[in-house]
């Protein structure tokens, strides 16, 4: 006998599909079956029961092996490491719930750390562009109900957001878009003919790293000015065609992804893209949405936003004020420039997704990784603290790629003794308070001064 949980939220990508059906065993300990999920989502739920789940914190030993320790020891080690560090980095946050992120920020504020989330190597540049030129956006439901022109630029939902096209962008039938795909024209711009490009009506292959120039050409054409015969490997006629398709639409939506943020120019590519959309609004209705990767990277930014006013790369080391300056307070720069002397990796895999130069630095400073599973980071850090999996073993609030908050659901119980991110951070904070009280000081700065004296 199994019981079925309906309307489960898939905690893999920023699409945050909320229509999964999960069959769990009677004792509520095992997931038996998952319906409606994409291949990745299904794997996420089904492999939870795989053997080899870590249930106790593991401390790295001299000889390179790991030794299981109790949560108390782990929490004490974490609190002391963070207090001793002059400028610790707390990176990740994108695969946990907002409650945990809020608890983490409280801790970061106590120990004067730098809080940074995965946006820093993902859509950070998009956020920089938004800071420079704003963002005419809308919810995914608007796209579903109204859009008749869809542009995918430097993103590949077929691989990265498998159900995006069927739920929101290409196929769904909405209030004003009853014809579904038939009523829509799909444009795909990329340097490789991705599987998304194969579905598109128009595929524009541009030379790698020429996005900025191409956007500029489109905007120039939109204003009826002349451009060279070829821009970024695309003939003028093709660009004119794209402009005409957009202008003839009633509701244009541009989805963009890593193809823009990871390549030459970074924020400027998106900056110019946003301005292209803004210009289009003089002729028709146009919006754009960033294809956020991890399921709650947006939420991590939202919490930082309302607590300190910045979407990512938030430096709290002054203890009295928050500072934000990507290029200085972003994780990769902090690690590569040797600006931080301790590191906490939460709900993300720094070692697997950062350039190696940064990873090596992480491996050489005291590092604590908080992750339900074994990952590259856990294998390179001094301490690995296992936690419950958000969206499977614990609920909590998460934000979709269009900033819509959705409450994730608990499906099964976490393994005995394994605690949640939120509880963990609250306990570390409590331990920090104890240590400050013991040393009889007001804040971490004084604590460090006392230690040095």
């Amino acid at each position, binding site marked *: 006998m199994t019981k079925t949980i*309906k*309307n489960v*939220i898939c905690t893999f990508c920023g699409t945050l599909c*909320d*229509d999964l059906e999960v069959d769990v065993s009677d004792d509520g300990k095992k997931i038996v079956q998952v319906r409606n999920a994409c291949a990745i989502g299904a794997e996420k739920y089904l492999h939870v029961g795989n053997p080899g789940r870590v249930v106790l914190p593991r401390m790295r030993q001299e000889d390179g092996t790991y030794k299981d320790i109790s949560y108390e020891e782990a929490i004490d080690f974490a609190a002391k490491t963070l207090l001793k560090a002059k400028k610790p980095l707390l990176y990740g946050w994108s695969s946990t719930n907002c409650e945990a992120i*809020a608890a983490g920020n409280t801790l970061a*504020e106590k120990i004067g750390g730098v809080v940074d989330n995965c946006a820093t190597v993902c859509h950070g540049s998009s*956020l920089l562009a*938004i*800071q420079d*030129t*704003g*963002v*005419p*956006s*809308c*919810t*995914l*439901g*608007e796209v*579903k*109900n*109204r859009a008749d022109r869809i542009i995918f630029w430097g993103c590949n939902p077929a691989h990265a957001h498998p159900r995006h096209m069927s*739920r*929101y962008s290409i196929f769904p*039938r*909405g*209030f*004003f878009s009853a014809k579904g795909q038939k009523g829509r024209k799909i444009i795909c711009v990329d340097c490789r003919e991705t599987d998304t490009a194969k579905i598109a009506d128009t595929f524009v292959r541009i030379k790698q790293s020429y996005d900025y120039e191409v956007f500029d050409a489109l905007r120039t054409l939109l204003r009826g000015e002349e451009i060279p015969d070829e821009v970024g490997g695309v003939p003028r006629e093709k660009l004119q065609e794209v402009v005409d398709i957009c202008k003839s639409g*009633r*509701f244009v939506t541009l989805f963009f992804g890593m193809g823009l943020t990871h390549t030459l120019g970074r924020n400027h590519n998106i900056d110019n893209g946003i301005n292209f959309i*803004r210009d289009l*609004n003089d002729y*028709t*209705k146009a*919006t754009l949405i960033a294809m956020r990767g991890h399921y709650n990277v947006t939420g991590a*930014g*939202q919490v930082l936003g*309302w*607590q*300190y*006013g*910045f*979407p990512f790369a938030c430096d*709290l080391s*002054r*203890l*009295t*004020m*928050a*500072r*934000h*300056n990507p290029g200085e307070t972003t994780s990769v720069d902090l690690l590569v420039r040797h600006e931080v002397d301790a590191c906490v990796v939460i709900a993300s895999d720094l070692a697997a997704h950062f350039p190696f130069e940064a990873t090596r630095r992480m491996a050489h400073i005291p590092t604590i990784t908080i992750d339900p599973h074994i990952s590259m980071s856990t294998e390179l850090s001094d301490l690995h603290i296992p936690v419950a999996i958000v969206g499977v073993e614990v609920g909590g*609030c998460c*934000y979709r790629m269009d*900033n*819509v*908050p959705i*409450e994730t659901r608990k499906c099964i119980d976490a393994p005995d003794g394994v605690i949640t991110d939120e509880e963990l951070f609250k306990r570390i904070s409590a331990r920090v308070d104890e240590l400050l009280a013991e040393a009889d000081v007001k*804040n971490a700065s004084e604590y460090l001064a006392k230690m040095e004296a």
Partner: protein
Amino acid sequence: MSEIIIKNGHVFDAVTGLKGDVADVCIKDGVIVDKVSNAATVIDAAGKTVMAGAVDVHTHVAGPKVNLGRWYRPEDKFRLGERCSAKLNPNTRIEGGFSIPTVFKTGYEYARMGFAFTMEAAMPPLYARHVHDEIRDTPILDQAALPVFGNNWFMFEYLKNGEYDNAAAYVAWILRQTKGYGIKCVNPGGSEAWGWGLNCLTVNDPVPYFDITPKEIVDGLITTNEHLKLPHSVHLHSNNLGNPGNYTTTLDSLKIAEGHTANNNFGRDTVLHHTHVQFHSYGGTTWADFESKAKEVMDYVNKQKNISIDTGNVTLDETTTMTADGPFEYHLGALNHLKWANVDVELETSAGVVPYIYGKNVKVCEMQWAIGLEIALYAKDMMRTMITTDHPNAGPFTRYPRVYAWLMDKEYRDAQLNGFKWSSKVIDATTLAELDREISLYELSQMTRAAPAKVLGLSKSFGGLAPGMKGNVAVYNINPDNMLKGLELEDALSKVSVFIKDGVKCVENGVVLEAEPVVKKTYWVNSSVPDTKQVIHDVSEKFLKYYSVNLANYEVVDHYAPNQEIVEV
């Protein structure tokens, strides 16, 4: 058993009718009482002004567009590298932001000015969770939020067909789902039209594809509101905001209230609250011949007893405009060429954000400043007129004390007026220079305490010092016997001597004390009106077909509002 007695202060309170008389205020277990034992903590308020905790009827301090504003305006925060003085209290959280303060700064700053309650003025139901997330993290303040209904597809259908039972049932359902407080209506029809890049500029422009007019929407909403007997009236931001000559639209919108009578058990006798009227009182045809119509609008407001307004005073700062009026923000962005952010919300509303600099040497801004003050000064019934800056649209709420000072001290505002680059032009196009009126402390206590509490249907617990009301008391370093002027007055109003919330002293001489013990509450309205078959059917159908989330994942569950104060209707 905490007891406090505030001794010998000059008490200004519209509820008990005290106009500066020296009296004691007693609080026991967080509630105002007649007397307390000798064990009570004594706060000496001799030579000081005592008022109830203030209430903000319209402010944008939580939610998606507010946070988008925070996200995309890092330049609105501390300047990098500048060493700010150590926090006065290590137990408070880091504060940041000027025009869009972080949640911590919001709570602390409001408390420093003596505010106990604020109303988040626009909550897109789909984003309700986000709004409550931020409200939960805002310290000290009691808060509530108004869901927007003016561009809601369900309401369009029901109101078009005059199905008021269904409309009422749907509103009640949304209030339960989103933990909302009342009915907000922003640019009726216009924000939906913005879904196609269009707008509704008069009350008679039909909404594209929905064959209903703003007039019908507002009229229907008022009917629904009184049918539901909600504590607050319909909260309207009418069409055609911020354009020269828009005062006619404003009057048309206000006239819709004629013939409606308030029907509720909360002591509210208005049926329509028109917000930030300053933005809606413009004459002329272009920015060139743009002039003030504050008098025309206020004359109507003064004689029409069943409507209330708030001012929306311009504070002459660099700020960030944000409203659910999508088309307006696009228009504004095209005017000042600054960064434009926009969020359209499926089936419900739209929203926009644009930074704006109210320059001291820009004619239009100087005019807007004057018009805002005119509106307050023309008001006859202070129980229907409230002071706001439509935070952060006309200026950040942290500038309230400056606005109060301008209103209470003619010299101060004339100095500002004559200091303008275009002062002669502003004096010609407005009547501010002729107005000698100075708002009294008692009138201030009405406009910032009793009136908003009454209009919001909270007069049983907020806005006064009568026994039984919440123990929210603000003590200012103002001696009515020798009244402060200008900057000093502004200063005294921005830093309370003591602020007591729910019987807990949480601010002293402008310094926030331990913020933790104060239990902040989230207010929301639970209407007993049951769902109708039709509504149940429509909801399940529309969610299946048009929404991007499932019905089951729409509700704001309890842990988003850990300390709820549920207003049962």
